[in-house]
């Protein structure tokens, strides 16, 4: 703690003892679309100093009065060299040109944000072009499924879009869409994530060494930025796939001043199936399932220094079954109607004001709204007309659960000189939890509500961090995150130190270490742990406290000729206050308080991750390997003994590659391998007792004995996905066809294991798999 103050004091002093210096600031954009480039590098080759743009494409760079060169670069873009005389504070906005396909030549020798030079650890950003180029399940590009291909990230069960980062659950991920937390990031019971790749500009995953600006979750931050819309030209893109179709349009409302983007996606299984169901039942029944996503964003430059954004996301899943029967004879005329529906979805909105306060200070004020709601309802109605009397009856039941947030956030970036990048700010969130309400209404019964345990809670935090270059070799990012949470007259607080740093051994190799403490004030109660919409978000309460994590990591980063990046990171993480359902608890029984149905325990996770990445060139992609251990300890589960976490995987290999041998031909593949998931299996059976047993008549049943929890391993999981894309310019723009296969060599990967009998009548374990080889085709277009 004392060192932290020392560093803070040091950094403040160093701001004042400088020669005459001026500041260059501005923003770096895509020349064509005006889209902000996040993390672009501004580098002065003479002083060997540099900086990067922040989340809004803004940079500030203070240099000694001189005639200076600036080299501005960004992965996949042609770098720009700017020369000017710095004699006063200057604003320079730079547009970079996207070097369309053969990126290799362009990138060699450019100075991007080099991995060994960053003080950050455990952060990976995947270029969006790469996300789109990799094979996609059923042709549906999914950002989360690409993140699952990174070391340290597990996919959970087959086909699921959940992310299990370094032994944490999906509830421990802070998923931010334009700064707004998204609570349930899955569609179709977890098979797809809610993020439409066409509407996204930038994705960054942080799995350790968390900077002070992030908080509120234990294991990971997934920061997703939506595109802002082309400020110069009206354009669009879309795709038609097996599962869903997408369309995105963007363009200027007022050139260079206001732009918009709107992007939609919808599945159409129901549209195709519904007429068939209707026909086969003479129009009496209807059933279907669909999901959709809608992203929209408007941004408006008030003047050069102020910008306003309004972004919104709405997504919903709905499964429904409706039936209508009519029966008529000379005495009686009856009509029956029944509707069942199951719906869940998120809505997020954010309004944000970016302001360049001074050329060294950048502020960002955001007001956000986020909600997740899950609802099942059943309605039935019957109208009977007999002779001259009519009677009608109805009933309606509905179960709903959800969470709703209002939040206000202020972030400030202060860049006094190239050796410091200071961030500070704070946030206040008002949560409303509705963990399960059953309402009932019928002809005889008025509105009846059960289990409406609405809980309000207030969460807030302040933070300050400095990315501080102490010597050319040593750079640290030190900060502090202080948070508090009030619920039911109970106040929880936590002070979380964060530090990470690098030491350059050679210009290409650095040592890195980091330590972070995280506190999470909300819990997710998950019944099967595969990310079903029935999972409940609940607050920390007086009885069930918040979750805490302590994470230390250490590693090496190596940059080979600016083409290949290699990192090795080892980590150790402790988690406490984790919540799990008790054995056999019934999660749908809303009349009982959830707090009586959970167990609180601890967990740990440790391992080593190896990662080699090549971001550009004809052949790009990465290879990752993780060796890890993840355990849980709950006093009342498994007899208090430590047991492996369900997603504990000893070895984990990931390969992702995109090969573009011609400008319009692309082949990509991904291969994943994971040691078998932990599972509990019965070992033996024994007779169970009966009271007052009559030895002559009664027979006893038997119990299965399972041994320790999760003490067996399923078979290893591995899978190859491939995809081939051909692109062609057309009169109106560009079109491409992609064909691919999921699980190409048809590996029967384990989904679950059950006891059954073989053809000979022998009792055997039977492994069930979910997806065999699945081909896919998708058509994409741009105009």
């Amino acid at each position: 703690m004392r060192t932290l103050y020392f560093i803070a004091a040091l950094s403040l002093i160093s701001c004042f003892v400088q020669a005459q210096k001026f500041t260059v600031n501005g923003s770096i954009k895509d020349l064509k679309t005006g889209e902000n480039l996040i993390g672009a590098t501004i580098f002065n080759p003479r002083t060997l100093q540099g900086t990067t743009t922040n989340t809004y494409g803004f940079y500030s760079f203070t240099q000694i009065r001189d005639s200076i060169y600036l080299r501005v670069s960004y992965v996949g873009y042609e770098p720009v060299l700017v020369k000017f005389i710095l004699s006063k504070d200057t604003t320079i906005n730079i547009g970079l040109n996207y070097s369309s396909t053969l990126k290799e030549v362009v990138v060699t020798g450019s100075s991007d944000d080099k991995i060994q030079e960053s003080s950050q650890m455990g952060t990976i950003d995947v270029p969006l072009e790469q996300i789109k180029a990799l094979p996609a399940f059923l042709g549906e590009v999914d950002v989360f499924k690409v993140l699952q291909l990174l070391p340290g990230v597990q996919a959970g069960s087959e086909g699921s879009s959940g992310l299990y980062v370094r032994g944490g659950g999906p509830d421990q991920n802070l998923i931010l869409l334009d700064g707004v937390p998204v609570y349930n990031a899955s569609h179709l019971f977890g098979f797809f994530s809610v993020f439409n790749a066409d509407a996204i500009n930038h994705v960054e995953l942080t799995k350790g060494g968390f900077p002070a600006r992030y908080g509120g979750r234990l294991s990971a931050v997934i920061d997703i930025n939506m595109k802002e819309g082309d400020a110069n030209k009206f354009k669009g893109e879309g795709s038609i796939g097996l599962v869903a179709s997408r369309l995105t349009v963007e363009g200027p409302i007022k050139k260079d001043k206001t732009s918009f983007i709107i992007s939609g996606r919808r599945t159409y299984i129901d549209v195709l199936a519904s007429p068939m169901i209707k026909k086969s039942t003479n129009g009496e029944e209807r059933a279907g399932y669909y999901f959709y996503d809608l992203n929209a964003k408007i941004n408006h430059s008030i003047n050069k220094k102020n910008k306003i954004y309004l972004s919104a996301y709405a997504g919903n899943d709905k499964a429904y079954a409706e039936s209508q029967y009519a029966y008529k004879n000379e005495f009686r005329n009856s009509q029956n109607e029944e509707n069942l529906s199951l719906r869940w979805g998120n809505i997020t909105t954010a309004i944000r004001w970016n302001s360049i306060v001074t050329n060294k200070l950048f502020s960002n004020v955001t007001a956000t709204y986020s909600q997740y709601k899950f609802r099942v309802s059943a309605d039935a109605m019957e109208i009977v007309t007999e002779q001259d009397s009519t009677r009608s009856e109805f009933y309606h039941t509905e179960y709903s659960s959800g969470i709703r947030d209002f939040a206000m956030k202020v972030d400030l970036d202060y860049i006094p000189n190239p050796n410091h990048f200071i961030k500070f700010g704070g946030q206040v969130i008002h949560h409303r939890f509705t963990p399960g309400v059953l309402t009932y209404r019928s002809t005889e019964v008025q509105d009846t509500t059960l289990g409406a345990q609405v809980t309000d809670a207030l969460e807030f935090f302040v933070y300050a961090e400095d990315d501080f270059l102490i010597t050319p070799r040593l750079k640290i990012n030190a900060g502090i995150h202080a948070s508090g949470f009030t619920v039911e007259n109970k106040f929880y607080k936590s002070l979380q130190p964060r530090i990470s740093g690098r030491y350059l051994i050679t210009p290409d190799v650095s040592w890195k270490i980091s330590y972070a403490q995280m506190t999470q004030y909300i819990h997710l109660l998950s019944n099967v742990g595969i990310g079903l919409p029935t999972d409940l978000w609940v607050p920390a309460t007086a009885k069930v406290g918040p979750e805490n994590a302590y994470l230390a990591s250490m590693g090496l980063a190596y940059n080979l000729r600016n083409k290949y990046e290699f990192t090795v990171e080892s980590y150790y993480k402790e988690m406490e206050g984790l919540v799990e359902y008790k054995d056999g608890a019934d999660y749908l029984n809303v009349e009982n308080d959830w707090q009586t149905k959970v167990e609180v325990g601890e967990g740990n996770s440790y391992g080593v991750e190896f990662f080699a990445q090549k971001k550009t060139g004809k052949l790009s992609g990465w290879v990752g390997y993780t060796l890890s251990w993840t355990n849980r300890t709950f006093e009342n589960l498994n007899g208090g003994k430590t047991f492996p976490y369900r997603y504990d995987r000893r070895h984990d290999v990931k390969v992702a590659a995109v090969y573009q041998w011609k400008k319009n031909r692309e082949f990509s593949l991904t291969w994943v391998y994971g040691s078998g998931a932990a599972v509990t299996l019965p070992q033996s059976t024994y007779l169970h007792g009966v009271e007052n047993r009559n030895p002559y008549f009664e027979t006893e049943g038997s119990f299965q004995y399972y041994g320790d929890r999760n003490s067996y391993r399923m078979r290893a999981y591995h899978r190859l996905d491939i995809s081939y894309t051909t692109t062609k310019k057309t009169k109106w723009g560009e079109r491409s066809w992609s064909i691919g296969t999921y699980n190409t060599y048809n590996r029967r990967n384990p989904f679950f294991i059950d006891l059954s009998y073989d053809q000979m009548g022998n009792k055997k374990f039977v492994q069930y798999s979910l997806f065999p080889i699945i081909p896919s085709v998708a058509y994409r277009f741009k105009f």
Partner: protein
Amino acid sequence: MVMKKYAWYVLFIFLTACELIVDIDVPFKEAQLTINSFFNTDSLWTASLSINQGILDTSPARRIENGLIIIYEEDIPVDTLTHVVNGVYRSDDEKPMLGRAYEIRASASEYKPISGRSYIPMPSSVTKADITESITIDGYPESVIRVSFTDDPLVTNYYQIFLEAEQEWIDPFTGVIKSNRSRLTIESDDPIVQNNDIIGYDGIFLRDILFNGGEGTVSFKTSSSNSAFYPAIIVTLRTVSEDFYNFKITGALHDNSSDNPFAQPVNVYKNIDNGFGIFAGYSESHFTIGQISERPVITAITPLKGKPGDHIIITGENFGDGFSYVIFKGIPYLVEGSVMRSTKGELEVRIPPKAISGKIYVSNGSKITASEVEFEVIE
């Protein structure tokens, strides 16, 4: 619930018959002895002895008939059980006593000896119990039963409550009247009930955390109008040992989760060292809600013969007011006559088709009486 159903539908659509039989090396090193013994003060010591078997072994359970089972009290042997049949052992004359700590030790050649300890807790008694009939919000009859009982403040107590109704029935082959008790299926959303997710034969279980030392009151319901069917309901209140409680609760959770591959499996509580099974004591007390009816008495049948379709009058006492039924001997065994009119002292019955000559039985809902005389059915 609707939701559960949908989740399963979706899963099964995706579960494209991808089955694969796999050989998983589940170690089964050696068979261990399994002993099951429940005891209370009213019954002789009884235990059953068997061995566990590998999960893939489908042969019938092996019961151990040549074992040695001895009951100890503070390391002093008090009784040796003798084998009766099918691996069940019983004491000749010894009954367990209240408040003593017992240990059971069992051994058999080839197997490691096993042991377990338990006790019989002090009984509690029901102070009050009543039943109210009501109609649920969706229009079905239900009975709400409230049971109050005293709780000993000095110890943590565990309780089991179940309901039984006594019924008599006629053995169709011999015509002998027999009686048995059947348990009623009950459920409860009372917060003091711990296993309210489990509806079962074993009734409900509770711990005294919410009412320690006071009077415990618990309410639960049955899904039909019981007081209409059964004039008397017997409440059994068991004060059970912690072993018994843990065994029953985990046993129910085990049964609920064992056929669902997505549920986290639950091991059943055991308190046997080096082996499997349970050794657990309990004590029992009873309380009757309502009145056990008097047995009907038949004084006269007029006329004493008739043909199917004819009406006869049975006079007597203690007939159920509206709940009586009359049984004739018939083809193949017994047939029920239609009761046309029923009072406590007189029944008018129509002789059913297929009735044959023999005794006539009258039931008032809980007790049955056979006529002294044989009724003659004429063709």
